[in-house]
């Protein structure tokens, strides 16, 4: 990858931001106290990470076809990710999982 150009620099910065968001999301999914907070961390960064990483990849694509393919992946990820989170939260609520509140100690892990 050619970092020397302005576009290359921009792509590198975007991808690093994306990698940071992704990593933070993973950390949140591991460290947060209850299911809904974990889902909050994971699902938000599941949208933020791909936006930055895939736009970065689009900038360093060599042909238009590749850039369009990456863009398509981004669009589908942005559609399906939040939908899956919504369905998962519905499933969890359905089974009687209540979100933990700050003053409710029983929910903490």
């Amino acid at each position: 990858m050619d970092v020397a150009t302005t576009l290359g620099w921009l792509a590198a910065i975007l991808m690093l931001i994306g990698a940071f968001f992704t990593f933070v999301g993973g950390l949140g999914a591991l460290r947060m106290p209850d299911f809904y907070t974990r889902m909050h961390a994971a699902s938000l960064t599941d949208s933020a990470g791909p936006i930055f990483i895939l736009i970065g990849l689009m900038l360093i694509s060599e042909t238009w076809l590749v850039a369009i393919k990456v863009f398509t992946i981004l669009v589908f990820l942005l559609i399906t990710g939040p939908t899956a989170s919504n369905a998962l939260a519905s499933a969890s609520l359905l089974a009687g999982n209540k979100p933990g509140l700050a003053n409710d100690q029983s929910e903490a892990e």
Partner: protein
Amino acid sequence: MVEILNIFIMLMLVITALAMVSSRHLFVTVMLSGIFSLLIAASFLLLDAADVALTEAAVGAGISTVLFLGALALMDVEETTRGVRRIRMVSLIVVAVTTIFIVHATFYMPAFGDINAPIHQHVAPWYIQHVPIHMDIPNIVTGILGSYRGYDTLGEVFVVFTAGIGVLSILGDPIKNRQHRPAHNRGLRHYLIPRLVGRMLIPFIILFGLYVQFHGEYSPGGGFQAGALVAAAIILYALLEGEDKALQVIPMRVLYIMMASGALLYGGVGVAALLMGGNFLDYSVLASTPVAGQQWGILLIEMGVGLTVTGVLITIFHAFAARSNL
């Protein structure tokens, strides 16, 4: 660089496998097998096996989870254990000895990526040299699977077909087993967001499946992957709207015909080659020039594979769903 990534992925694969074995809760095992599938697809890709990775992606991402859950709905989620869980001395010894033999055998294997490995000396160069001459398609894997090893692929199609029949004969006719539920309680109709998004994506999944089917000679893909993708789209529709709607779109009769006609089409191409003066599954004689004949043959048998796989996967889903009310 890629090797280091692969080592990490292998490590995760082993951890996932151990967790799957030690878990007593079958739902947990199903979820972990989903992770296993994701990891092994990445591992296949790192080993440059894009076609296999695409198969794993198409089957493992959606369908296998759905089918596992369908099976799980028919039984207890808790794994039952007979008596005390103790390690038997005999099995321990057998496992240990086998492990020692296997580990010992790996020392005689060529190193990873070794250019002097037998496979890179005889078979692989022959394929790389002859696929452009014999059939003139860029994806060598499709050439090997479709033509040189057409017998293997024919066998696989019949295995898939037999699996479909096997599931049907164990679980019974999906139509007769259909449990009648009130209309408002079918599928995920009340879940507006999944329903809207799912319905919106179904055409794209089918379109991508067709791309994988007909572009399989140029990029990773082929009948198996395309069949799994199209089946995933139909199963998604069934999940969203209930099986009754899905059965209206593709009735069981059509599915049975798809299952059988795909295998028939594949065998028929072989017989046609025979009748036109060639060997069984020798496509060279199918058209005016051998190269065109090979291309036609591969296109037709891939269609057969796609039809059978789609039909069988949807049939298996309906068979489970009718029983389990999924």
